[in-house]
């Protein structure tokens, strides 16, 4: 019964949480091996690159959403914001040219992000409600903008706009490069700058952050600008790849993005997690979906599996915090 024992409990919780965290990676490795056995294409370099490229759009959005989640909020509006941005950039491309189209679209989504940020940061409304509302409001906005018609780029072969979705830089597909560069920059911002530290503080304990002289309102506001900006970038990639857009092209992305963030292990309560974890989470998600397709599961089965994976991840996250899988009290 010496005093030394006092420090013991946190250490043992750490071990458990480590196990719980690794549990998902162990599952992932088994998954990869399993898919690899059943489908010889799965582990081929072409397929792995395909998965990376396909994950890039979700990944770019997830980088922004991770920043929001780290500050203790949610952003569910990114799905319809992606639709809006893609429709807009494609539509304006033929009317004004690529550069003005990109510029105007980015400003437009930043305005939408600012609305989120104002309502959640300054009016302190619940982020789930606000961004869920924005999800459907922006979908409506998109339909008004397009008049319900799908849009296309007329001259798909010669425009330099193609570089974002179809081109490559030094032999690597541009979407992968954009995803990687954005992730690295945001990781450095979050881990090394005073601004990043403030976001972690607000997410970890908003009250204590305010008591430490941090302007919580502004910090929260800014995270929604970052999220909107990332979604705007994703819209450029998507518009460029497809060279056209449907009004509901981003439908469901908000959940895939959130799934990536959660899978990476960033806490929905805020204050814990990081960008690189999200990158990993997004890739896991991409590989699972790709593997299911290769095994011949119907496309829509992905949605069910994604849901199962999210639930599993959330459960393990909660279980890791309380140190056991089941508990009569929270």
């Amino acid at each position, binding site marked *: *019964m010496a*005093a030394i*024992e*006092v*420090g*013991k*409990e*946190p250490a043992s*919780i750490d071990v458990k949480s480590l196990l719980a965290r690794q549990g998902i990676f162990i599952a992932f490795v088994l998954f990869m091996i399993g898919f690899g056995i059943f489908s010889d294409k799965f582990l081929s370099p072409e397929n792995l690159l395909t998965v990376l490229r396909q994950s890039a759009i979700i990944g770019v959005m997830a980088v922004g959403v991770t920043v929001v989640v780290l500050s203790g909020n949610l952003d569910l509006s990114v799905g319809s914001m992606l639709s809006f941005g893609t429709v807009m950039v494609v539509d304006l491309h033929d009317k004004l040219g690529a550069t003005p189209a990109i510029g105007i679209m980015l400003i437009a989504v930043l305005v939408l992000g600012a609305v989120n940020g104002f309502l959640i940061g300054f009016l302190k409304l619940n982020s789930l409600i606000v961004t869920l509302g924005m999800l459907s409001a922006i979908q409506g906005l998109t339909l008004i903008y397009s008049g319900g018609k799908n849009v296309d780029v007329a001259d798909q072969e010669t425009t330099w706009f193609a570089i974002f979705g179809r081109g490559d830089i030094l032999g690597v597909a541009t979407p992968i490069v954009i995803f990687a560069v954005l992730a690295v920059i945001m990781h*450095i911002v979050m881990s*090394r*700058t*005073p601004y990043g*530290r*403030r976001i*972690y*503080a607000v997410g*970890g*304990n908003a*009250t*204590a*952050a*305010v*008591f*430490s*002289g*941090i*302007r919580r309102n502004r910090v929260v506001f800014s995270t929604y600008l970052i999220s909107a900006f990332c979604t705007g970038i994703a819209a450029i990639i998507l518009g460029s790849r497809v060279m056209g857009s449907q009004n509901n092209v981003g439908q469901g992305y908000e959940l895939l993005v959130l799934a990536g963030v959660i899978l990476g292990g960033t806490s929905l309560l805020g*204050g*814990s997690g990081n960008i690189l974890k999200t990158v990993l989470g997004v890739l896991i998600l991409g590989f699972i979906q790709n593997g299911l397709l290769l095994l011949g599961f119907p496309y829509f089965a992905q949605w069910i599996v994604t849901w199962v994976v999210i639930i599993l991840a959330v459960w393990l996250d909660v279980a890791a915090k309380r140190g056991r899988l089941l508990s*009569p*009290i929270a």
Partner: protein
Amino acid sequence: MSISNPTLQLVGIVKTFPGVRALDDVNFDVQPGEVHALLGENGAGKSTLMKVLAGMYQPDGGKIVIDGSPVVMRTPLEAKQSGVILIHQELSLAEEMTVAENVFLGELPKKRFGLVDWKTLHQRVYVILNKLNCDFEPTTPVDSLSIAKKQMVEIARALTHDAKVVIFDEPTASLTDQEKVVLFDVIRDLQADGVGIVYISHRMEEIFHLSNRISVLRDGTYRGTLMTAETNEDEVTQLMIGRSLSYERLHEHVETGDVALSVENLSCGKLYQDVSFEVRTGEVVGFYGLVGAGRTEIAETLFGLRKPTSGQIHLQGKAVDINSPVEAIQFGLSLVPENRKEQGLVLAMSCRDNMTLPQIDALTTGPFVSGTEELKIYNTYHDQLEIKTPSWRQPVQNLSGGNQQKIVIGKWLGMHPKVLIVDEPTRGIDVGSKSEIHNLLRKLAKSGYAVVVISSEMPEVLHVSDRIVAMYNGRVMREFTSDEVTEDNLIQAISGLSDNNLKVA
């Protein structure tokens, strides 16, 4: 009373939380039909012990014995089924539901198909309410009842089971004298039925009025049990705080400097009115009063968290308007808040990061936070405040309360404030760290800070303050110098028993 077989026995209970040993080898027992009072200062471990008893916490060591056989109570329901019932300090009723539903919450009698058997329910609750002499119906909605009556509902809940032990945690905290009489009658009835009662309270007169035995906890350890009939308040107090009630005062005669903070006729709606005081560099001014007297609200106003409705604040002679914590900090004002864990610290962050949080913008090379600069600051205050932690990387949630508090204080010392406001400096901190913090506050004043200490503990205020501002109901009742102040006149001032109030009465 003969020492028969105890209904309930706790042997060598140990419970640790990260960084704290909340209970260390605690023994406690309850005989059938007795009232056993449990006493201890805040943070002594009473609540933890009760939560262990009620199945809310699992002890890390020791055993619980009921009627001679060891039991494990994994959930509150299991504890209830073993006959141990806790009447919470904060009542835990479903406000929207009726009395009857609350009394049998979770165990409503059922008919076929799982439907609630309302008739049986209301009959059974009616019988219990009668026994407790309650004047309300089983069908009354709980949210229409007074606090005292809600407490009766909680007690009724206890009687649905074969209660062997009923634990009352500060039951009279919000009751009127009349309501207390009713409660005490109920307790005596339970006693007569052979139920063992555990009675937790700070109020000595109640304890001596009701109890057969008194047990004392201090800093999570068991300090002994006294027969109520053979002891007195002094002996109990001494056991509780480890010394008798004479406080050595820390302050020597101090050289005070200029007025650092002066507040004139400050009011904030109904929270406090017409508050004026001055704090000079080099002195500690204590604010003492009951909870709700407006002390914390004044601190929050000074720190820019509340807007005053009238009055003026001067910092070093200049009239200032403080609209946010950011501005307060720029004016050289710092607040160590009342609630360390909720307001003072980002618990999951490291010791270093918490300490450098307010000045993080200044600790950069280029656009990046400089780890070396941060560590410099951290090491300075880590050494000065003698913070005990294995490493700066340690999340603050793993530290003991005393060391956590030092991190919060260090965080503000790094900002070199002119005025340091410390709200409840030692709440929930063990006695050893308490005196360290007290000495630290004195030392800070001496080194040129103007220090304001807000505390609900009289020994603490007497201990550290050069002057004491006594508050009652949102008003400053009197200001004492350390020579004038005595326990008696201080208590009088904070109870509103000054000349003014006597006239009103």
